[in-house]
């Protein structure tokens, strides 16, 4: 702009102006700091998603620390297993038990099924609630993949699931020997989850 000469730089008009200029300098770095904070936050979010610590779809269960709700479900037709009711869970279990909501149409249920089989083999009582399923489909599922359930209730209307606060299958609840719900997992069980959370809980409530 000025090609010809050098305008002498205006000296600071007074000390106050210099002070405001200095105090405003941090404003220059504020956007950078905000961006840095956002990056950190995003990183924490991604990390949480990766480890499962942060789950945006996770709804905390309202039933933790409460006795299992009142319910009585008929057995799954033709499965040859007894049905499931609240009395079965409150009446002094020998070991902490799992209550697993599942359906044959649910793909994550298929994914977690081998883990339920393993837990049942190891002696953890696993109780099933078959959610909104056709009995023949559910029977076929168990015939093909094995049956981990000591008892199996059929909840075709999905009403008992609402009493448990279920919002989608699969969901798994840990019930202690006194019939109190101690833990809930929404979504398929995974081997890391089994080792990091479920086994310690099973031991603690044994």
């Amino acid at each position, binding site marked *: 702009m000025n090609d010809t000469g050098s305008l*002498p730089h205006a000296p600071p008009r007074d000390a106050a102006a210099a002070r*405001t200029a200095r105090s405003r300098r941090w404003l220059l770095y504020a956007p950078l700091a905000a961006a840095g904070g956002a990056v950190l936050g995003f990183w924490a979010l991604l990390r949480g998603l990766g480890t499962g610590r942060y789950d945006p779809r996770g709804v905390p269960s*309202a039933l933790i620390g409460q006795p299992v*709700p009142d319910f009585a479900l008929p057995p799954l037709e033709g499965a040859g297993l007894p049905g499931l009711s609240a009395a079965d869970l409150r009446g002094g279990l020998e070991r902490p038990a799992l209550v697993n909501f599942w359906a044959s149409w649910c793909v994550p249920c298929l994914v977690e099924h081998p883990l339920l089989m393993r837990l049942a083999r190891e002696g953890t009582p696993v109780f099933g609630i078959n959610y909104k399923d056709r009995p023949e489909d559910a029977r076929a599922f168990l015939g093909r993949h094995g049956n981990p359930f000591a008892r199996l209730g059929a909840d075709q*209307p999905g*009403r008992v699931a609402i009493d*448990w606060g279920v919002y989608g299958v699969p969901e798994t609840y840990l019930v202690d020997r006194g019939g109190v719900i101690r833990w809930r997992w929404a979504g398929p069980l995974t081997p890391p989850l089994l080792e990091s959370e479920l086994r310690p809980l099973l031991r603690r409530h044994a």
Partner: protein
Amino acid sequence: MPRRAALFLLLAPLLPAAAARGAVGDPAERLADPALEARARAIGRELRCLVCQNQSIEDSNADLARDLRRLVRERIAAGASDAEVVRFVHARYGDFVLLRPPLTAATALLWAMPALALAGGGAAILLALRRRRAAPDAAVETAPLSEAERARLAALEAEGGERRPS
């Protein structure tokens, strides 16, 4: 054609609303008594669909939302008060199911945020005003030109005057 596209873009935001209204349009779901149905709807609009999360159960097509709608209507038909119905669902699904979260220690910041933001903005404006009053005309004040500057300005003005056409 572009005009039609523009019209579509204008109306597009309305489409989900129209679809959502269809979700509860099933007459079989409604209660026969319009007053009870209105109550059920008002309750349902306060309850979150846990599958789709940002819709109320009245707006959602999800299976669970339909079940919950039915449950709300059953309870109302059985003579439960609005508060009892909400308590029934809340006991099962916790605070998350309420689209208007209750004021607790955990949600205090959420509820206080509008007031905090307003107070913060007000404080910033007050501070800026006070600073401006403390240093009047600081922004428009200019240093007087030095002798050398004045001479240079005169030279530039003279030069510009010569170059000006006409």
